[in-house]
């Protein structure tokens, strides 16, 4: 990488511009490849588009900026502990509006840490929940016919359907 800049500008799929520091952008494999291939300098007018909507991109960049120092230099145990707490707070978001978009974005941007965190968050939201709670959290409609429901009841007699 021959970049002389500390931050680059990217476009969201909605066409909004966002700044992301080079060290934070490195958390994404495709962005890192781009940084290696393209010479970014102050007079470079090329603005890459990231196929992620603005609302999601803000969150993704926030995550990258927070995690970049640790990813680049390693961190002490207390830092790791603090970061874990931050992750939990960061992930408190609406499932439909944002969590699913984060999952797709992290997958698309090859961001292992965020992808793992988002998958675990989604899994934790399902663990220990009742069937109707899962439907509510994930905005899912019960699309079984009453006949199919009866069949499922017979299959899992000990399972609560509420």
């Amino acid at each position, binding site marked *: 990488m021959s970049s002389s800049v500390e931050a680059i500008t990217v476009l969201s799929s909605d066409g909004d511009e966002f700044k992301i520091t080079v060290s934070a952008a490195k958390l994404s494999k495709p962005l890192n490849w781009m940084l290696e291939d393209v010479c970014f300098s102050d007079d470079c007018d090329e603005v890459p588009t990231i196929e992620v909507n603005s609302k999601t991109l803000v969150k993704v960049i926030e995550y990258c900026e927070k995690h970049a120092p640790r990813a680049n230099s390693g961190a002490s145990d207390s830092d790791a502990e603090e970061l874990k707490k931050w992750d939990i707070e960061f992930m408190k978001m609406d499932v439909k509006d944002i969590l699913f978009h984060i999952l797709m974005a992290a997958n698309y941007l090859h961001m292992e840490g965020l992808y793992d965190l988002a998958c675990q968050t989604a899994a934790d939201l399902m663990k220990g929940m009742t069937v109707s709670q899962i439907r509510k959290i*994930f905005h899912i409609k019960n699309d079984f016919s009453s006949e199919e429901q009866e069949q499922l009841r017979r*299959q*899992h*007699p000990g399972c609560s*359907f509420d």
Partner: protein
Amino acid sequence: MFGDLPPEILGEILHRLPVKSLVKCTIVCKHLNSFITDQTFIFDHLNQTIQASSGNGWLFLQLYLRTRHLVPYIHHEEFYSLYSHNQQIDQFSFKKFPLSGLLRSYNHSTVVGTCDGLVCITDSQIYHMATLLIWNPSIRKYMIIFEPILTSDTGNGQHKGYQPLYGFGFDSKNKDYKVIRLVALLDKEIVPQVEVFSLASRSWRSIPFRASPFLLPDLFWNIPQVFLNGVVHWVVSRRCDDHILNFILTFDVVEETFGELTLPQLLRESTTELSILEGGDSLCVLHALYVEDDCFFSIWVMKEYGVVGSWNEVYCWDSHLYKGITTVLDLCADGKVVLLLYSGDVVLLDPVTEVVKSLTGQKWFHAFAGSYVESLVFIKREPDLLSYEFT
């Protein structure tokens, strides 16, 4: 909503859930139901669970309660338990899984083996065939296997005493679970008749026995088997001039062929009880050794599978230890050993620290222990899969 996610992302989320939560998810909506009950997901989930639990999996126990009745076989109580012996939590979650009296027609039931979270049980190995059952305790479903081809009436309708030998394993090529049944006359070195039950086709099929005849040990209990590396193993013997030679009979579940593995010298010619044991990823043999009035239990491990020179005696316990060892039930993947003691207690022994932990706290007179993993096999609805309520 889950339908909007690419399958690889949905899979990644669902793989993180325990079986109990996944069963619940099949009730949430059609999309989750068809995703979770799909063969690909079932086997991916199983492989991930096996990998994640490597070295500290679960333990399946079958226990018979001691009774004061004159005919203990009829009045016994039977329990099945699952233990998670995860070292991190250092706690045992104890669950009882009651099963109907399906398998109690003559005698106690015998666990043939465990494989991928499925437990194969027969009602008796001494009398003539009756019922076989394949059970997934994690999702509370089981199926009864129909009568095999070879029963006591096979042949000229003559009633002959025979000993069946059972094995249970997974055919990785055809993604099929199979029960193998060898039927041989007691005390006679003959060519056994062999049949295989395929879970995928739900049927028994006779296959030829292309190996040298052998003699079954004359045990009035079950002959243990171990399924490892795609192969079922039993310890059997053969008469050679004036003495008996013990060896390991093998059955390749994919190829459906028989083979043999040689035992170390000491075990080959031993006249005392030998039985095959699970030992994590290795094949083990338990040897009960009598020296005058004392009994010793030694455990031999085949460190490199198939290499005769790699047999090693790893443990030897005086049966008087721990207030009396009745037998060794299992070697766990984490190195711990499951023992049945004279007192009737089933304990977990850490051979390094010699710490003994009681698993059952009750007095049992027989126990089976085998490795276990939570699995979704049987989650898909099939007409012959039966469910029971957990009480």
